């Protein structure tokens, strides 16, 4: 009653960026893998580890774009390996996410990503709530931020995070905007003050990579622009003596 994924119709070559502790530089290893029409990059990598090289390290858990662990760069673009299809490609290049420290092979350390969320009180809600009436009308507009699966893909895709380690990054600002838009008892003022900063919302150069890359439809870039709009409005009101708070 089983049809193993390795029963592929053809062979694809996977070029995987490898690096172990102590290596002077990363290098590519090539693996030929049998793939079928629905094969995902993650299935292929797991098959490589099972059949060819047990020392290959990668992160994965849920296999359905919910846990966010298998973020990596496939042919240069960030994506979740579990929902990235091999398609017709005869050669697939796989690299770890950029802008995060490499632990080994395709594994990056996620603590810098979570550090960006820490000062905000980590407002990414891990489960969407189902209490009718408890949330404002039009809640659909708010709930998308809860879709953040903390995969780090936005950080990898962001050209600014790529060069400036001080930038808090898209996910944190999206999370912050969630607090502003939908405070749920929190005081948004301090969060806005953190984001109205040249290492936060104002650091963004509007490349929109984060929103285009996000596998979960979070749209951090829009959130960044909303933070700016609100911050700029508050500054303008202060400037013209109309009071208002940041």
């Amino acid at each position: 009653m089983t049809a193993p994924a390795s029963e592929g119709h053809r062979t694809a070559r996977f070029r995987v960026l490898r690096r172990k502790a102590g290596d002077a530089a990363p290098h590519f290893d090539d693996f030929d893998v049998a793939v079928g029409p629905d094969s995902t990059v993650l299935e292929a990598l797991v098959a490589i580890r099972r059949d060819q090289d047990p020392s290959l390290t990668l992160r994965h858990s849920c296999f359905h774009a919910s846990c966010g662990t298998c973020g990596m760069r496939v042919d240069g673009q960030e994506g979740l390996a579990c929902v990235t299809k091999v398609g017709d490609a005869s050669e697939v290049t796989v690299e770890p996410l950029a802008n995060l420290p490499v632990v080994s092979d395709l594994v990056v350390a996620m603590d810098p990503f979570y550090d960006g969320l820490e000062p905000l009180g980590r407002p990414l809600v891990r489960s969407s709530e189902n209490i009718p009436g408890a949330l404002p009308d039009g809640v659909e507009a708010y709930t998308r931020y809860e879709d953040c699966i903390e995969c780090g893909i936005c950080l990898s895709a962001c050209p600014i995070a790529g060069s400036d380690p001080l930038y808090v990054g898209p996910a944190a600002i999206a999370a912050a905007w969630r607090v502003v838009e939908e405070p749920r008892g929190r005081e948004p003022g301090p969060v806005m003050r953190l984001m109205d900063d040249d290492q936060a919302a104002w650091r963004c150069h509007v490349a929109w990579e984060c929103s285009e890359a996000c596998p979960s439809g979070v749209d951090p870039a829009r959130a960044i622009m909303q933070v700016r709009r609100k911050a700029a409005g508050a500054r303008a009101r202060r400037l013209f003596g109309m009071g208002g708070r940041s």
Partner: protein
Amino acid sequence: MATTVDRPRPAAGGEEGRRGATGWFDPRGRRMGGLAFILNRLTGIGLVLYLYLHLVILSMLARGPEAWDQFVDIALSPPFLALDVLLLTGLLIHGLNGIRVGLVGLGFVASRQRAMFIALMVVAALVAIAGALRIFSGE
């Protein structure tokens, strides 16, 4: 801004995972907005260089009519005119994309940023072509 916690980490690549300060202009794997960003920076750098070149060249004006008009004769030669077209194109890309970045970057029409970029770049291309024709026709 990002808190730096001293945390033991068996990192093979360390901070080298970052694309790096010179990594921003690598267009591989970038999507439309990323390419716009790269284009904006490259044209920006080009225009800064032109600004200072321009200021140096203008100093010839202070040296009287002969020096300047001699330079203008050279500047009307085709290679120089090609540079003019390049300058015009850079200005158009940077300026028109700048309108998008300004609007979107302050939270306006953010949902339309993609369409806006395409439209503005079409305008840039058309004006650049018209400008090139005019420059080379010697008008």
